[in-house]
C-alpha cells in the first residue's frame, strides 16, 4: 500500500519531532484554524511545532519533496489572514523557537529566534539601556518572526521606521528547505538585498529561523501628551503645524469620538470628556531637544484650538494614555458586538478630506465607524462596527470597509500600512497595482519559491506561472497612458 504524500509527511514529522510537536487530531487542528482575522477559518491538514531550526528546515524539505504546501505561523496575531492555514497543507508553528540568543550592547544588536515575543526583546535589552523600536499594538503577544513576515510597524514608526529598518540579518529557510543567511551582522552585505525582499513578504518566500535586530538606545527623555479637541479637523490642523515646523515626534496618534468612547468603556483611560478627537503625542530624545520641541507642540495645539492639554507626569500616567490608544481595537467590542479592523494609508495631508468622506460613507450606509490612526504618517485604522445577528449588517459593514480602501487608493495611498495583504486583501491588489507591477513582484516569488508551496494563495489574486515568459506588452504603463503619472 503506497502512502499518500500527507501520510508520508506525517510519518517523517513524527520521526523528526517530539511527540507533542506533531498534531493530527482534528479537534486540536481546529484550534489553529485562524489568526487574528477570525472570520477566515481553514483547518490545516497537519500542524508541526519544531523546536529547532534544523527540524523546521527538515520539515520544509519534506514539503518541497512531496509538494505539500506549508504556512508559517508565529503567535497568530496577524490581522490579514497571513497565517490562515492551507486545507491540504501543514501549518509550521514557530512558537517553540523562542530563544533570545544574544544581546550585544557594544554592537547595538540582538539575535533572536522567530518565536520570541516582540516586547521580550525590549525587556531583555532595557537593563543595558537599549530597546527594540518597532512596537505593534500587539507587542505583548506578537512574535518577531511574524513581525518580519508582515514588516510590522507600530505607533513609533513615524520616527523610527518599521521592522525592515531594524532587521539586519536573518537565517532563512528557503522553500526547498535550504538554510541560507540573508544580510549580515554588519550593514550593506554584498549582493542583492534579499532580506529587504523577504521582510514583509508575508511568509510567501520562506521562513526565518533566526533574526538579528538593531537595538536603539533608550532616549534620555520622553514626554507624552494627551490633547483634546472638539473635532478631528482641529486635531488634524495641529498635526500639520507640528510636521510643518520640522518636528518629527516619536508618535502622533489620533482617535475620534467613537473610538474614545470605546476606549473609555473598556479601560477607563480618563480621556477628556466630550472630545471630538484626541491626539496622543510623544516626543523623545535628548532632554534639551525634547524640551524645545515640547514648548512648540503645546503652542501649536493651543493655536489650533485644543481645549485640554495633559502631559504625563509619571510613568503610570504615560501608561494610561497609551493604554487607551493601544487597546482601541479590542475596546470597540464594548460598544459593538462585531467589528472590522481596517488598515489603509493616505498621504497625511489628505486626512481631513478622507475623514469627511468616511463620515459621509458612514451616514449614507448607517454603519458606524470609529477612527483610530497614526496621524503622523496617514495610516488609518477605521473600525467598522456591526451586529452580525442583524441580517445584512455584515455585508453592509464589508462594503463600507471596502469603500474606505477605495478612498485610500483615490488619494494615492495604500491598501495596507502594517497589517499586510494576506488572505484578506489579495482581491484589492489589482486596484492598487497594474498587472505588470504584480507580475514584477511575482518574479521575486518565482526566484524564491517556483513551486509556490510557501504560503500559497496569499497576497496575489492570480499567481504567475513561473518560468513563463510574460507576453510582450506594447507601450506605456497603464497609469502613464491614463495621464495619471509619468513616474511616481
Amino acid at each position, binding site marked *: 500500500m503506497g502512502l499518500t504524500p500527507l501520510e508520508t509527511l506525517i510519518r517523517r514529522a513524527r520521526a523528526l519531532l517530539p511527540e507533542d510537536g506533531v498534531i493530527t487530531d482534528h479537534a486540536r487542528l481546529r484550534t489553529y484554524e485562524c489568526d487574528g482575522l477570525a472570520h477566515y477559518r481553514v483547518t490545516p491538514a497537519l500542524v508541526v511545532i519544531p523546536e529547532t531550526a534544523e527540524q523546521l528546515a527538515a520539515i520544509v524539505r519534506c514539503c518541497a519533496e512531496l509538494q505539500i504546501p506549508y504556512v508559517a505561523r508565529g503567535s497568530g496575531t496577524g490581522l490579514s489572514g497571513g497565517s490562515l492555514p492551507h486545507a491540504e497543507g501543514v501549518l509550521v508553528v514557530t512558537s517553540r523557537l523562542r530563544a533570545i540568543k544574544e544581546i550585544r550592547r557594544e554592537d547595538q544588536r540582538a539575535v533572536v529566534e522567530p518565536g520570541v515575543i516582540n516586547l521580550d526583546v525590549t525587556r531583555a535589552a532595557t537593563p543595558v539601556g537599549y530597546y527594540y523600536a518597532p512596537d505593534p499594538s500587539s507587542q505583548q503577544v506578537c512574535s518577531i518572526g511574524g513581525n518580519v513576515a508582515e514588516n510590522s*510597524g507600530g505607533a513609533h514608526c513615524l520616527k523610527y521606521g518599521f521592522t525592515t529598518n531594524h532587521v539586519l540579518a536573518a537565517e532563512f529557510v528557503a522553500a526547498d528547505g535550504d538554510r541560507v543567511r540573508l544580510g549580515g*551582522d554588519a550593514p550593506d552585505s*554584498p549582493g542583492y538585498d534579499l532580506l529587504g525582499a523577504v521582510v514583509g513578504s508575508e511568509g510567501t518566500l520562506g521562513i526565518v529561523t533566526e533574526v538579528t535586530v538593531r537595538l536603539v*538606545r533608550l532616549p534620555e527623555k520622553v514626554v507624552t501628551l494627551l490633547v483634546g479637541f472638539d473635532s478631528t479637523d482641529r486635531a488634524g490642523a495641529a498635526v500639520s503645524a507640528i510636521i510643518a515646523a520640522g518636528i518629527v515626534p516619536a508618535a502622533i496618534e489620533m482617535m475620534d469620538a467613537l473610538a474614545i468612547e470605546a476606549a473609555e468603556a473598556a479601560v477607563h483611560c480618563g480621556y477628556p470628556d466630550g472630545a471630538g478627537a484626541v491626539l496622543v503625542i510623544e516626543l523623545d530624545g535628548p532632554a534639551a*531637544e525634547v524640551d524645545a520641541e515640547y514648548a512648540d507642540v503645546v503652542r501649536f495645539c493651543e493655536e489650533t484650538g485644543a481645549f485640554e492639554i495633559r502631559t504625563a507626569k509619571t510613568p503610570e500616567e504615560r501608561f494610561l494614555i497609551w493604554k487607551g490608544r493601544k487597546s482601541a481595537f479590542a475596546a470597540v467590542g464594548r460598544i459593538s458586538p462585531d467589528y472590522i479592523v481596517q488598515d489603509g494609508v493616505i498621504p497625511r495631508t489628505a486626512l481631513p478630506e478622507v475623514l469627511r468622506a468616511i463620515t459621509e460613507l458612514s451616514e449614507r450606509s448607517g454603519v458606524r465607524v470609529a477612527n483610530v490612526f497614526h496621524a503622523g504618517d496617514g495610516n488609518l485604522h477605521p473600525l467598522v462596527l456591526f451586529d452580525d445577528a442583524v441580517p445584512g449588517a455584515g455585508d453592509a459593514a464589508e462594503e463600507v470597509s471596502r469603500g474606505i480602501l477605495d478612498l485610500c487608493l483615490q488619494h494615492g495611498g495604500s491598501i495596507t500600512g502594517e497589517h499586510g495583504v494576506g488572505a484578506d486583501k489579495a482581491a484589492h491588489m489589482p486596484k492598487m497595482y497594474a498587472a505588470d507591477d504584480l507580475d514584477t513582484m511575482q518574479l521575486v*516569488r518565482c526566484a524564491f519559491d517556483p513551486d509556490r508551496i510557501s504560503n500559497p494563495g496569499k497576497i496575489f489574486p492570480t499567481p504567475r506561472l513561473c518560468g513563463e515568459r*510574460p507576453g510582450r506588452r506594447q507601450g506605456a504603463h497603464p497609469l502613464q497612458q491614463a495621464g495619471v503619472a509619468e513616474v511616481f
Partner: protein
Amino acid sequence: MSDITVSGVTPGRIERPTSTAEVAEIMRAAVSAGESVVPTGAGTKLSWGNPPTSADILLDLSALDQVIEHASGDLIATVGAGTPLARLNEHVAAAGQRLALDETVPGATVGGTLATNTSGPLRMLAGTMRDLLIGVTMVRADGVVAKAGGKVVKNVAGYDVGKLLVGSMGTLAVVTGATFRLHPVPQSRRWVGVTAHDAAHAAELTQAVLHSQTVPSGLEVDATADGLRVDVLVEGRPEGVAGRTAVLKQLLPGAEISDRPPAGWGRYPWDDTSDRHLGIKVTFRLSGLADLIEAAGELGLRGSAGVGVAYVAVPADRDITEIRTLLERLRETTGRHGGSTVVLDAPQSIKQQLDLWGPVPALELMRRVKNEFDPDHRLSPGRFVGGI
C-alpha cells in the same frame, strides 16, 4: 563622450532617452536585436564593479532629471532617475526639507546612488537609500514598465521590490524614477571633533558616543598619516544642539566644536576622479572598529564608525602581491567582525587580478533572482557579484 567606458569596456553606442516610455522603447529594441544595456546617470561610478561582459548600449538617463512632485506636507518627493542628488536637495530645501543622503561623489544622480547604494555620515540618522526609497518606476529587461511601492511612507502591500533594486548595479531593471521620504532640514548643526591617540582610543571614544543619549546624525572616524580623528555631527534645534554638544564635550575630552564640517566629511578617502587608487569598502560590527583601523594600518581609513562602514584608499602603484595581502588582511578582519570587504573601484589592470566582492552568502538565490528579472543577462551583464 566617446572616451566613456564601463570599467574599461567601451560601449557600442550611447542612447539618451528623455522619458520612461523612451527607455521602454529602447529596451524593447534591445530585446529584438539581442543587445546588452548598461544604465548610467552622471557616470560618476561607471568604473565601479566588474567590467561588463558586453555593453552594446550605454543608456544615459541624465535627461530624466525633473523633480516631478514635491509634496512638502507629506514629506515626499518624486524625481527622475537622472536628477542630481544636489539638485533634488536644492529643490526641497525651499520647503525646509532634505533627502537625508550624502552626495559621496560630486554630481551623483538619484539613480546612480540607488544603483550603488552609496551613503555617507547621515546614514547614522536616516539609514541609506534602502530606508528612504518608498516608490520606484522601472523598465524591466523585457521592456515592460512596472512600478513598486508608492507615494506613502507606510505601505506593506506586496513585495518591496525597490529594496532589491537598491545596490543592484543596474543588473535587474532600469530605474527611471523614484519617490523618497524626506526629512526636515535641522535648524542647527554642529560638529564635535577630537583627536584620538590610537585605534583603541578611537574605539573607546566611539563607544562612549554610541552609548550616550545625544542621538548623533553622524559619527565618523578618519585615520590618516596625520593622525586619528573622531567627529560627531549633532543636528536639531539650537537649544537642543547646545545641550547635546555640551554632553559630547564631556565624553570627548579636548574636543573642538565647529559649525563647519571637518575636511573630507562625507567624501571617500580617495580622489574621486583619479585612477591612482583602489577604493575599498569595509563593513564590520561596531565593536570591530579598533581591529579595522589596525588592519588598514598606514593606509588609513575613513567612514561611519557609528554604523560599521568605512573606506580605505590604496595607492594603485603598490605591488599586486602587496595589494592582495592587504585585501586578504581586510577580509579576514571584516569576516571576524561579521562584515565584508568589497573593492568598489580600481584601475582596470589591477581589477582583473582581484576578487572584488569576496564571499557572498546566498549567491545561488541571487542568481535565481537575476534569472527571473533578466533571463538573457541583458542588463549590465557581469558587473555584479558572482559575475551576475
